[in-house]
């Protein structure tokens, strides 16, 4: 076993190459360093994406508005749990609610959009007064968080109540085709991931 290892071979071990090899591998690994790193920066990392999507769309044809004897052609509470989901409610920072109302009917109307908590208590209210056609599209943005209204309005919201009141008559008919009141809404909120 290993009978042919001669003294010359052992001498060769002591050559410069031996030292270079050992130094390069062992010493370089043992002396491996990490230069000028500041891992504390991780604490300053902020991951705050902004997500947006539609919330609620309401469409009320003029015939339906005229069909109601009372002035309110809708007063309804809609369950809306999206804002109450912990993944959102625990992490939302700020954002904007966007509303767009169009009226092609012959009568003025008032539309009230209310944020309700789990006990149906009103948290916030948006009131939109709409003139009869022809009129421009009503567009509104409401900010929450930061300099806007309290973000807890959003995080406490469990449902939405919409009330629409006909401020005109119940007999006239718009000359425009498919006359209706449409209500569009969307939310854009910034979330704290880290």
């Amino acid at each position, binding site marked *: *076993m*290993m*009978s*042919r*290892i*001669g003294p*010359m*071979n*052992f001498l*060769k*071990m002591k050559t410069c*190459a*031996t030292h270079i*090899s050992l130094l*390069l*591998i062992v010493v*370089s*690994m043992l002396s*491996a*360093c*990490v*230069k*000028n*790193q*500041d*891992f504390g*920066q*991780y604490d*300053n*990392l*902020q*991951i705050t*994406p*902004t*997500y*947006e*999507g*539609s*919330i*609620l*769309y*309401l*469409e009320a*044809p003029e015939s*339906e508005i005229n*069909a109601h004897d009372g002035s309110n052609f*809708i007063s*309804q509470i*809609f*369950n809306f*749990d*999206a804002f109450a989901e912990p993944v959102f409610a625990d992490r939302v920072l700020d954002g904007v609610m*966007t509303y*767009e109302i169009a009226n092609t009917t012959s009568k003025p109307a008032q539309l009230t959009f209310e944020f309700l908590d789990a006990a149906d208590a009103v948290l916030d209210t948006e009131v939109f007064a709409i003139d009869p056609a022809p009129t421009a599209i009503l567009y509104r943005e409401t900010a929450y968080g930061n300099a806007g209204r309290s973000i807890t309005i959003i995080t406490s919201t469990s449902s939405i109540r919409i009330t629409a009141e006909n401020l005109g008559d119940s007999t006239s008919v718009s000359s425009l085709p498919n006359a209706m009141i*449409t209500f*569009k*809404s*969307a939310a*854009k909120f*910034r979330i704290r991931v880290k």
Partner: protein
Amino acid sequence: MSCRPIIFIISVLTCTLVHCQNKELLYDFTEIPQALMVNPGARNDFEWYAGIPTLSGISLQAGISGISVNDLFANDGLDINDKVRDRAIYGLSTRDEQSTTFQLEFFNGGFRGKKNELYSFGMYVEGDVINYWPQDYAILAFEGNADQIGRRFDLGDLKVRGELVNVFHFGINKRLNNSLRVGIRAKLYSGILDVRSANNRGYFVTTEGNRNLLANTIAADLIMRTSGMNTLGEANDDGTLTNFFMKRAFFGGDLGAGFDVGLTYHLNNQTVLTASLLDIGFIYHSNDVSTYSLKGSATIEGVDVILPDALSDPNRDFWQELVDEVETLVPFRTSHKNYISFRPTRLYGSLRYNFGEELPSLEDCDCGPDSGKGGAGRRAKYANAIGGQLYMVNRPRGPQMALTAFYHRNFGNVMAIKTTYTVDKFSATNFGLGLSLQLGPINAYIMSDNLFAYGNLAASRYASFQLGLNIISWSRK
């Protein structure tokens, strides 16, 4: 200069997802028995060898392409949020990967048969993880979908694979004639853990709504398969992790089979061609298997209230209807159907030119430079060799390749070194060095890649080392 966070860096590199290790230093390093593991047809002259259990072969490799720890955490006064956004979120592409591989031999041995063939056998555990940068997921998580009207976030960016396998192997290496030596190794795989999600398709896009202000559309065909993960969680809770690993490592988990082949061919006395193909095989996952899928498409524009139909039922829950509709259109399902995974097959090849002094053979034979021309029909062994090597591995986004130039030097039969320069997707400045020492019957080797990176590990995108201890005999039993 601070030297303290080395462990942190190694942990980061290791815990990110790795690729099957390119062992360019070990390849064709014929003084080391483990060279047979990367080429079953490698030249050898051992009578027998035995690896020191658990110490015969230890290797670890970690690679990150496109970015380094230094790029993010250098103390350069820049805002970490800007660095992450510019260098990671938008700086990386879906071709960039984070990967790591380790291999630990429990035992490894070999002996020569009556017809001069060499039989080898052993058992090792291998872990392999690779993750391709999920760019669109990262953008969606970092920036969100706001003000990205029309942008399609590609859900196919999710490509990840990880596995932990115990491998039993038995191989034979035989010199067919004076020019050609071939080898083959059979492998039995005992799968311990497996996670893979590679063939994903789909997108998420936000557009102007048809009725409402915005429309969010998801079209998904996502699938993730796992094996052993549920049992792992239970074992972790019960404090029985050791039993879990032992059971699944010894055929109590998933089973598979495969083989390696390799050859060494002497074009002439000094020029040698080698090649090997490793891990041509599969694992049949049938134990604690779960498949998670998300498939379908849906477009939502919030809650739709269309009068007068919407008011026909005063108790109607529009929000829950919307949630139910999405879950119906894009269902998330879990199944437990068995599946097959193919091993990440690797290809090695090399062209080597030997020159310089002819060395005496350690074999107990009439061979070597003093034995006459081609003593006993064996090729002479030279002190020096230069050459080039090719490495390819099959990956979820297609084959990856590395090219290596090397210089191999023997100092008698006592010491051998191999230096390499390798170009791959991780680095163009990868210089490696391997050392094999033969002290009596004890063989020790240590190898490391990307040596220049050790000056600042945080700036490195690639780190790799191998080491081991063997007992080798050249004498007849």
